[in-house]
């Protein structure tokens, strides 16, 4: 059967550029989402570690709700629900970006919390004993060390987001998987576009994990 199959990549002439657009959209939305998710997640991790129990409650509710619901449902809510709620159209890019940010923010909050709590207690004490305020010590002493601790986990999260961004195709966000579907619909060629995007995803992610390895080694300069 396999040998009998007639491979047909003739669509590449006409549709090759679709893949490039897809790569750009996938990377753009994933990178933006993870960066925003890092900021959001760090803030939420502060809520979760707060001395005030209402703040802790807000932080952990967010994390639990996001982790306890499917990404695709979150996407539908942001894409179809939010415009109804707001009364105006937010555009598909914004909906996609918000979904991924809010989703990865919850996971990153847990990563950051673990990273911050793994920094030795003596570091905060030493910083405070020098007259640094809590927030200055957090920024100068704790967060840089925490960030270094969690870089592998953050890299992992980025990789997860790149892969999960394929779900955005369901609502018509023109990322890589959506492009393959478009080509499939237009040409009735099924397997070839899918194999191509599988290859592209793999190369993207493999490259990223290599780059992350280099970044980690750089940060180890002080070990």
């Amino acid at each position, binding site marked *: 059967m396999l040998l009998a199959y007639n491979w047909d990549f003739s669509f590449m002439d006409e549709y090759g550029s679709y893949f490039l657009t897809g790569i750009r959209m996938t990377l753009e939305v994933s990178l933006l989402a993870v960066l925003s998710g890092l900021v959001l997640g760090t803030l939420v991790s502060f809520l979760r570690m707060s001395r005030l129990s209402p703040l802790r409650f807000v932080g952990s509710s967010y994390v639990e709700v996001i982790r306890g619901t499917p990404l695709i449902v979150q996407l539908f809510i942001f894409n179809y629900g939010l415009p109804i709620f707001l009364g105006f159209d937010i555009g598909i890019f914004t909906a996609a970006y918000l979904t991924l940010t809010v989703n990865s923010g919850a996971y990153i909050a847990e990563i950051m919390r673990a990273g911050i709590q793994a920094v030795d207690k*003596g570091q905060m*004490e*030493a910083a*405070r*004993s*020098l007259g640094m305020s809590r927030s200055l010590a957090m920024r100068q002493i704790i967060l840089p060390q925490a960030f270094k601790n969690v870089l592998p986990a953050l890299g992992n999260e980025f990789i997860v987001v790149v892969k999960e961004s394929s779900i955005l195709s369901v609502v018509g966000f023109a990322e890589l998987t959506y492009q393959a579907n478009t080509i499939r619909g237009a040409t009735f060629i099924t397997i070839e576009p899918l194999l191509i995007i599988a290859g592209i995803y793999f190369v993207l992610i493999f490259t990223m994990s290599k780059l992350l390895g280099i970044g980690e080694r750089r940060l180890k*300069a002080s*070990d």
Partner: protein
Amino acid sequence: MIKVRGLMKSFGKATVLNGIDADIAKGEVVVVIGPSGSGKSTFLRCLNLLETPNGGEIEFEGKRITDKGLNIDVLRQNMGMVFQQFNLFPHKTVLQNISLAPIKVRNTSKSEADKIGMELLRRVGLEEKRDAYPSRLSGGQKQRVAIARALAMRPHVMLFDEPTSALDPEMVGEVLDVMKSLAREGMTMVIVTHEMGFAREVGDRLLFIDGGVIVEQGVPREVLANPRHPRTKEFLSKVL
């Protein structure tokens, strides 16, 4: 300079400090000894409010620091602290460890802070380590950097929490030498230690703490040679 009255501290149900009264004069070197779990480290940590007392009062340079609403950060700028575990900042070089607080807290210019840092490094004999990261230093070197870091804020008093307890024996001397030179220059110091020889040689006064109270105090040479209280006798017979 420091006045402590009726200091109380408990962790949950465990009472660690049970009414401590002490006065520390400017330029005085006070050594604090006692069995482990006696509350001596907690006493020291209460002085710069790393632990919040449950009762009693502490006055520092005429200000009651146990009052609510006091700016703890300003207080701590004038009280240096050296920890048993050094607690150097591992992601900063030796010189950055020292200059960070002057730059960020005192708004000293970087060049000025580096100058102060290099002076202090010279003083503790570690100039050539300025760009090394703490992980490359021996325990004794780490503790000397930690002392330099605390001194960079030009504190009025230095608190030492068992500064040599985490060191290999051959490195204790280099750290004690730095502390001795500080004492000679008239720095006010409160030192929790197990180094009885150092206490005898450098201390102006010795406090023996046990069970959360000061059991006995006096000139180190006399207390160590002729302890009066049975608990002091028992402790000293074990460590001397």
